[in-house]
């Protein structure tokens, strides 16, 4: 019983909130362009469904491509940096500057570089910039996270640099890499959506474009519908990544 209640609790809350929202809109006669009723949002969802799913896939695929690009560059750079403390000192500040600069601020520049006809490239590039740091940071930390006593053991048995890297540092880094990729994937979606907004309605076919387009026409219910899809997509992605991280750790630890 209590387990059922625990499982249902969030849905019950959502249902209550939606019911209150619906009732308030009707009783107070709120104009639909200001705040549509949940039932209107559901109607919009049904009407726009296929288009929204296409847009969601568009945004998601951009984010995933960006994640792959960021992953490859961040890990390669972390490997180089991890082998040289001097290089790490040199690269760190640049990486931090890249991380703390809001993606919105560099988006217009990247759009120009990618060419205004190739908004897709700019969106991938911007999402990759956002996704880069957690992977890079996790990889650099992970490469230094090996048990110091295991390091001593490798000293004792006269391990070479390559042996130390492949048999100790890389495997020790795995949990940090999993965590980094999990965070980065979430950020890549945010980066892709932000980049879509900056690219504007002409440049992309993603979810942000749906929101912009509906907003321009004051079709607020359709804006909400796109937001709902975005939220659900984020939640599903998050759950998938959590599961992926858990599975990866289980494989690493053997249980």
């Amino acid at each position, binding site marked *: 019983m209590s387990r059922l209640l625990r499982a249902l609790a969030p849905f019950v809350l959502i249902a209550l909130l939606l019911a209150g929202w619906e009732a308030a809109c009707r009783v107070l006669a709120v104009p639909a362009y200001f705040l549509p009723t949940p039932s209107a949002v559901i109607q919009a969802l049904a009407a726009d469904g296929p288009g929204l799913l296409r847009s969601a896939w568009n945004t998601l695929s951009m984010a995933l491509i960006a994640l792959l690009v960021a992953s490859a560059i961040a890990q390669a750079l972390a490997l180089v940096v991890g082998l040289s403390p001097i290089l790490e000192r040199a690269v760190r500040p640049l990486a931090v500057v890249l991380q703390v600069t809001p993606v919105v601020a560099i988006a217009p520049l990247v759009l120009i570089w990618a060419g205004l006809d190739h908004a897709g490239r700019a969106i991938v590039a911007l999402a990759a910039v956002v996704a880069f740091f957690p992977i890079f940071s996790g990889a650099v930390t992970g490469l230094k996270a090996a*048990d110091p*006593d*295991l390091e*001593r*053991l*490798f*000293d*004792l*048995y*006269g*391990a070479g640099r390559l*042996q130390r890297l492949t*048999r*100790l540092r890389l*495997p*020790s880094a*795995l949990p940090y890499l999993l965590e980094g990729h999990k965070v980065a994937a979430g950020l890549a979606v945010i980066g892709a959506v932000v980049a879509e907004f900056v690219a504007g309605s002409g440049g992309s076919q993603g979810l942000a474009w749906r929101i912009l387009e509906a907003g321009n026409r004051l079709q607020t219910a359709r804006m909400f519908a796109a937001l709902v899809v975005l939220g659900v997509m984020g939640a599903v992605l998050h759950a998938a990544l959590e599961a992926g991280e858990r599975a990866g750790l289980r494989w*690493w*630890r*053997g*249980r």
Partner: protein
Amino acid sequence: MTVAALREVTVDYPRGRALGPFSLGIGAGEIVALVGPSGCGKSTAMRLLAGLEAPSGGTVERTPGRGETAVVFQAPTLAPWLSARANAALPLELAGVRRAEAAARADEALARVGLAGAEAARPAQLSGGMAMRVSLARALVTGPKLLLLDEPFAALDEITRRALADDVLALWAAAKPAIVFVTHNVEEAVYMASRVVVMTKGPGRTAGEVAATGALPRPEGFRTTPDFRTTVEAVSALLAQGMAA
């Protein structure tokens, strides 16, 4: 014959002296217990004996070559991503021994520490005592001449500690490596060692030395003999002196 010796060694860190001047000779086949208060430099002395660290002053003499010195740390220090077999085989693989041969010798070492059947288990699936045994198997797999045990049983419960102490003595009897082991536990030191070296509080010097009586490995009921009690009292007295010094 001396396997390793520290002669008037000192170790200085930026925050001050950690050890010495301290001297210690280890004879072949001897079991030496190193007892002293926390922070007296016992672990530093072990790292010097292992050749993992250089002294600031004095000399370290070591006859064993690479792979002939083995260390067991306070924690099992196993690679979580490797099976018990792969963990135990690690020293051999690092030395370039072929994988199949290394695995076979690792299995044999695991069997010697009573872990036959657990070869495929990962460290996370083992109890603390079993993980420590894997660590011991990894140390034994190269057939070391000098075995350094740095508080190896500190994290284990009393029953497991005693069982492992007897196992280490049995393993010693089979191959007679020189063993140096660090412990806080006076009774454990007297039980396992042929010689107990007591260190002063840090920076550690020699507070004194007590020869433990009786044959190794210990007979049943050794802990209740008057000899054992007398030796424990002698070591405790030295330890108290060393703390006050």
